[in-house]
């Protein structure tokens, strides 16, 4: 891998060039605003039905929630490492780091599905009560983002593997999307699992 094979705008400190490009950051801000509004609505509803929210929150599986937090943080570390590997022009390490990131993402989905399965077995659905309406909406919407993030990472991996050419902006944008899933989870985990 030579320097000529790495395409980048390389103007990282310019206002129009945040890491990954301006478009991905507009998406990140819009997503954070959407989840932020849902969290504010959740908090307002929790004031109206304090007991229901407290009891329902205590029914959530804190072990799975915490494991998922650790998995996402670890995948975030490997994604950051993958980008450092690309900048170091080390394709082998880059591929390794991105595969580990995807495996950790898949594990997150597996744990989430186990949690959903437990809830369904207990007869808890989206219409059980207000808390669970928010729970299913917030966590499923987040899960969709993780799935989209995994598809983006898979496409990034194959495009690098196939063409052997690195477009740094594209890889940074994929990484930024993946980290956004981290950010959203770090917002919703304490609100759903710990605050009540």
């Amino acid at each position, binding site marked *: 891998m030579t320097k000529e094979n790495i395409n980048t705008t390389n103007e990282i*400190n310019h206002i129009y*060039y*945040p890491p990954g490009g301006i478009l991905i950051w507009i998406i990140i801000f819009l997503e954070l605003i959407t*989840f*932020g509004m849902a969290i504010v609505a959740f*908090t307002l509803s929790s004031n109206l039905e304090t007991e229901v929210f407290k009891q329902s929150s205590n029914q959530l599986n804190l072990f799975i929630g915490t494991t998922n937090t650790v998995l996402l943080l670890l995948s975030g570390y490997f994604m950051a*490492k993958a980008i450092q590997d690309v900048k170091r022009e080390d394709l082998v390490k880059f591929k390794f780091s991105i595969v580990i990131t995807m495996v950790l993402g898949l594990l997150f989905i597996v744990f989430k599905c186990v949690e959903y399965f437990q809830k369904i077995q207990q007869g808890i659905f989206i219409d059980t009560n207000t808390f669970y309406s928010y729970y299913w909406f917030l966590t499923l919407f987040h899960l969709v983002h993780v799935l989209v993030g995994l598809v983006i990472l898979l496409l990034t991996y194959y495009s690098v593997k196939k063409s052997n050419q690195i477009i740094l902006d594209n890889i940074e944008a994929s990484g930024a999307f993946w980290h956004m899933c981290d950010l959203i989870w770090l*917002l919703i*985990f304490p609100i759903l699992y*710990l605050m009540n």
Partner: protein
Amino acid sequence: MFIRGLNSILVFLVLLTLTSVFLYLSNVITHSEGLIMFISFIKIMMVAMYFMELKKAHLFWRLSLLFLIGIIIVSAFVLKS
């Protein structure tokens, strides 16, 4: 480059420690909402600054994210209490 790699590991370890701290706080202290939200805020900013490399971006992006996450966390905390 080695220092950079070490930085990422350090950031990850700090994030893990903060996760353990807020799990502990939520079990020990009755009204720990404020602390939990504050720790979440630090964790989110650490992920953004170090993993997303926002610390290298223009000040506008850093302040915008700080403001947005701050608004969400403060609103959740104020409305809760």
